[in-house]
């Protein structure tokens, strides 16, 4: 049995060199007609205020 925990972190030289995404992603979760299952609608738009989508969702307290 291998010991996964014995491995240390590997060097990641390019981490953090990317620009942010273009589209702001929003999601809305609802219950389906059967009252048991969930459905999530994903919509996208450009973030005119330049704020990361996940931060905006947290601030608005949306049903994500």
């Amino acid at each position, binding site marked *: 049995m*291998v010991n*996964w*925990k014995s*491995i*240390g*972190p*590997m060097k*990641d030289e*390019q*981490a*953090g*060199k*990317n*620009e*942010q*995404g*273009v*589209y702001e*992603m929003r*999601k809305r979760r609802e219950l*389906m*007609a059967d009252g*048991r*299952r*969930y*459905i*999530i*609608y*994903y*919509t*996208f738009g*450009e973030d005119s205020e330049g704020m990361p989508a996940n931060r905006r969702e947290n601030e608005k307290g949306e049903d994500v």
Partner: protein
Amino acid sequence: MSELRWNPLMGEWVATATHRQDRTFLPPADFCPLCPTAPGGFPTEIPEPTYDIVVFENRFPSLAPVPPEPAVEGTELYPVRPGQGECEVVVYTPNHNSTLADEPVERIYKLVQVWTDRFRELSALEFVKYVFIFENKGEAIGVTLHHPHGQIYAYPFVPPRVEKELAQSLNHYQEKGSCLLCDIVAEEKNDGRRVVAENDFFVAYVPFFARYPYELHIASKRHLQDLTGLGGKEQKDLAEILKQVLAAFDKLFNVSFPYMMVLHQRPSDGENYDFYHFHIEFYPPMRTATKLKFLAGSESGAGMFINDTLAEEKAAELREKIENVEWKATE
């Protein structure tokens, strides 16, 4: 009924999900459950009259967050456990007659973001140990719904094929001090004959060890373990190379090319997988314009694949079909 039964011969779980026998099978377009519900029309799974990308829990799941008790009692030799997990359907577009290959690169880019969100959310569930994102496309693969969609299975264990890949990656790291897939990507790029497409952050290639004639892998050039590590430019590059290879597949024989597409990411069981490397694998069943590759005796009974073609030649065929991708400012 749904449960997990242990196969002691192979040391792996098998899911039984008898309710799936009754799932919707190739319905006419007017009764597609993945289309938006039209006003006054047949109530589909999606009540909204239109949508961008939608994810919902599968009506006929193999695994469920609150699974039923197993139909049989286990024994010491044959353990049985509830089929706990999650099965989601990812609907790519409202357009019933489209395919992922037909969709603009902007939508594929959005899909990459949805995949990332689903991986992040499902990985956080306590009972989920592995999030498996995939698409089965085409009747040759056995799809039951033609509407363009993929699926996500969140397993309560690390599935055996991934476990084997992890073990190989770990062994390589312990022996060589380097990432196995980083070394594979370097060798494919250095050789060049099997490379199909490439951009700043990703490379697509028919692997040296291809099991299917048109098997194709897409790997990130940067060493990362899952989609959540991708930056915005990397997400766009992934969408772009996906669009290129999907379009090339369709151009090969001028048909909507069937395939299995699977995303291999790190498990979500809380362990350290820094040695592992995210990638996508395609397994298309076509070996010519009119012939399929079947998983017959050697493949199914011995696990030994026999590929009737040379990866170098198939890569060259695909490479000829690669075209540049046009981005719009907005979709």
